[in-house]
């Protein structure tokens, strides 16, 4: 665990007083998570970077509306979710970049072509491709749970969706991933 000399809540309070430097430090702590979350949803680096910038600008402008400074993370991800899906609703079809070839062929498995042991980077690409087979809302739920480690209640807060729906999406997505990743799991067993 990395020891943080200044807690996020202190930086938020400083930001509210107009200290831009405090907010820059806050950004440096969260920008990579937000960028990757957005990137996995829009699958376009330029869009992801623009959206990340927009997310932090919106968060700055609305900092005084954050009721509980301890819940900055879910609040920030909710902004990211809203901004991202706002963009996706505007022009979804023409923005596919990452792992497009594998993702667009639902009949193929990401692990059929190699046959040998998968290296971590290959495994990363393969799992990313498997994620693209999920519906956007399923993929987002998996990301928030597995990659970001949010609790069910926090995910429900971010997506403004009931906890029961979140659990349903996550469980369905996980079953799909379990089936798609099973071949790689066998190879992973050999690798590890």
């Amino acid at each position, binding site marked *: 665990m990395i020891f943080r000399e200044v807690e996020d809540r202190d930086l938020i309070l400083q930001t*509210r007083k*107009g200290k831009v430097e405090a907010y820059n430090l806050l950004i440096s702590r969260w920008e990579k998570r937000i960028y990757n979350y957005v990137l996995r949803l829009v699958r376009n680096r330029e869009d992801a*970077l623009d959206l*990340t910038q927009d997310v932090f600008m919106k968060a700055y*402008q609305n900092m005084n509306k954050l009721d509980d400074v301890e819940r900055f993370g879910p609040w920030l991800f909710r902004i990211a979710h809203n901004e991202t899906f706002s963009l996706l609703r505007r022009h979804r079809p023409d923005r596919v970049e990452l792992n497009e070839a594998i993702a667009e062929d639902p009949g193929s498995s990401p692990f059929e072509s190699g046959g040998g042991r998968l290296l971590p980077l290959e495994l990363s690409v393969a*799992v990313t491709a498997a994620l693209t087979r999920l519906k956007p809302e399923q993929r987002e739920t998996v990301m928030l749970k597995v990659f970001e480690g949010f609790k069910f209640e926090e995910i429900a807060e971010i997506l403004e969706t009931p906890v029961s729906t979140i659990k349903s999406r996550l469980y369905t997505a996980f079953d799909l991933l*379990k089936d798609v990743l099973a071949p790689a*799991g066998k190879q*992973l067993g050999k690798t590890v």
Partner: protein
Amino acid sequence: MSDIDLKAYLFGELAEEERRRVAAQLEKDPALRAEYARLEQTQAMLGFVQDEELPRRIAFVSDKVFEPSWWQRFLASGPQLGFASAALLALAMVGHGWLSRPVAPVMQAAKFDEAVVRQVVAAEVSQRMNDVLRQVSNVPNSDVKTAQLIAIAMKQAEKRAELDRAADRLTIEENFNLLRRLISRDQVASYQRPAGER
């Protein structure tokens, strides 16, 4: 197995009692253990997804446009808000004290005012009189003084002339008396000499 929430157990979302119940069930049930192993493996594989670095850092400059307005900063600041409340309370106390202060009798205030007014009016009247006099004579202040000095000098000159005239009259009277005494003495002497000598 249907009432066992393996995924919630995997994600650490179960309460302690329920978590223990699932753990005990996993110990007993090989099929359940196998299913849980597949879920664990799937989660482990998802962990291989690597995060990308940002192409460039995101940072804000100190731009006034995005900075909170003065009242937003004020409301966000506890100490400032507290100080303002204290200041407002102090102001209210002073205001209350001022409004409820004992009022001085009206007559005393009138006397005081009358004296002041008299003084002011007197000064004003004096000033205005001087102004009017200057306007009437149409002479500047310095000329008035000169005229006064001339008048005094003329009075003194008149006095001196009067004294000179009085001295002259005395001199003439004395000379006339001396001449009359000389004539009288000569007449007495001529009467006292023999007839053949006159």
